[in-house]
């Protein structure tokens, strides 16, 4: 997968991440949380290119080791954590970045509420992920794939509203998903985990959402 996708393991790679933060007009010096930061490649490059103060979290064991192994001018703050239980105080981040992650989280409502909790009022959620239209359930052959966990678009929009977010921008980047699938094929791996079949074929969307200006949601 890394041969096909590089160190930013999501469709669009770092190019899409950089495009997203420009679109969201995130200011230099902003504190950003990268959920599912993996090897911290995106964090390192966003810090170097945009001057953001990056914090990351991931379920992968000891992500701090991956961070320390990187050649970066400033230390990265990385925590081993679950997206449904973020180990951060309320209202500490200017933006939360989630790239091809939430579709794999069992309780999306919980994860979105946590995103809202750690964001300052007026903060920004930058989310790119797999989405599908309502259709017949996916076949058994893709039941365990990423495509099978793609968000139902209408339900996810509702979940965002419930969590206190307002979508201000949406872009389709399905081409990036297809290109990643193509790279997997060239690398000799199966692309079925990303592609699904028929009406279950996912799209890849970038959403920029802001927090509704309200009282900070307390930690539950």
């Amino acid at each position, binding site marked *: 997968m890394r*041969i*096909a996708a*590089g160190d930013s393991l999501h469709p669009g*790679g770092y190019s899409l991440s950089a495009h997203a933060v420009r679109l969201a007009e995130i200011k230099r010096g902003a504190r950003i949380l990268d959920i599912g930061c993996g090897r911290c490649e995106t964090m390192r490059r966003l810090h170097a290119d945009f001057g953001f103060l990056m914090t990351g979290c991931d379920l992968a064991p000891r992500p701090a080791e991956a961070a320390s192994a990187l050649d970066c001018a400033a230390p990265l703050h990385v925590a081993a954590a679950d997206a449904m239980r973020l180990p951060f105080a309320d209202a500490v981040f200017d933006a939360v970045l989630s790239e091809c992650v939430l579709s794999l989280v069992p309780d999306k409502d919980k994860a979105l509420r946590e995103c809202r909790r750690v964001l300052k009022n007026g903060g920004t959620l930058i989310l790119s992920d797999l989405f599908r239209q309502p259709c017949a359930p996916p076949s058994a052959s893709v039941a365990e794939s990423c495509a099978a966990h793609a968000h139902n678009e209408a339900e996810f929009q509702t979940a965002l509203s419930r969590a206190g977010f307002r979508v201000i921008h949406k872009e389709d980047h*399905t*081409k990036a998903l*297809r*290109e990643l*699938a*193509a*790279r997997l*094929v*060239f*690398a*000799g791996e199966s*692309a079925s985990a990303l*592609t699904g079949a028929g009406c279950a*074929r996912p799209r890849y969307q970038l959403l920029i959402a802001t927090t509704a200006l309200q009282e900070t949601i307390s930690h539950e």
Partner: protein
Amino acid sequence: MSTMKVLNQDFSQWKCTLCGVNLKPMPVELEYLDSHFNVELPACPECGQVLIPEDLALGKMAEVESLLEDK
């Protein structure tokens, strides 16, 4: 993005008919429907002519084309 190795066979015995030079594995950019991929393919180091083996064309490349066409 790094150059992907897409072939396992050795094509070093193949020669370019124009240049008479043995082919070498070289980075090649493939383009289809505005998507670009850097792969390693046997090519002539003199004139740059690239060899695309039939099983690659009918196998991985055909699958990639289908993916990009969203069929």
